[in-house]
């Protein structure tokens, strides 16, 4: 693994189903983030974690939950998916001791029908 990986690459999901998007980084970054990207809206922050064991809400947290059991993994869960959650989801990480750059994963395209 080099950088940030996300799984799955894409997914079609029936409304009402539960879904977990996976994110793993191997850079030992303390901070991790989940964004959603929608046409005309750019990227918006869903949840973040400054360090393992802590999480916080971003701009659009409703309908999503996260956990940060260790430094490397930051899964995003949709407990009961709705069509408005159709989007491209990006995971990112950063090291506050570094140059403030956030590194992004390749994204997951999620379609909720």
């Amino acid at each position, binding site marked *: 693994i080099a950088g940030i990986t996300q799984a799955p690459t894409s997914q079609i999901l029936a409304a009402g189903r539960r879904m977990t998007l996976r994110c793993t980084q191997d850079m030992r970054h303390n901070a991790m983030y989940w*964004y959603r990207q929608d046409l005309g809206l750019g990227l918006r922050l869903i949840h973040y974690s*400054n360090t393992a064991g802590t999480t916080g809400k971003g701009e659009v947290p409703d309908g999503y939950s996260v956990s940060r059991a260790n430094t490397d993994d930051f899964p995003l869960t949709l407990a009961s998916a709705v069509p408005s959650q159709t989007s491209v989801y990006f995971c990112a990480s950063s090291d506050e001791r570094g140059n403030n750059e*956030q590194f992004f994963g390749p*994204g997951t395209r999620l379609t909720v029908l």
Partner: protein
Amino acid sequence: AQTVTQSQPEMSVQEAETVTLSCTYDTSESDYYLFWYKQPPSRQMILVIRQEAYKQQNATENRFSVNFQKAAKSFSLKISDSQLGDAAMYFCAYRSAFTDKLIFGTGTRLQVFP
């Protein structure tokens, strides 16, 4: 709350020419960072250039440079000698010095014509 505005949904440029993408932001803070990210059709988010607000000198990375006007809260990206591979969505982003969270603009789609 901070906001980032990109007023140009689409721009186009001829290969080898120069193009400037606009970005303005709103903040009451004096210490922050500004970024330009490129998103090609592959969907990968790639950092193009970074500017620290406390630095007066405009950042430059090869063919990419910024015009940072702190008083006007403006942060435009200039691409010189445009190449076909520059075609992408470009996002401007703001980050406070006190948090790690990025605030993005809505993006500008750049087309490059041969």
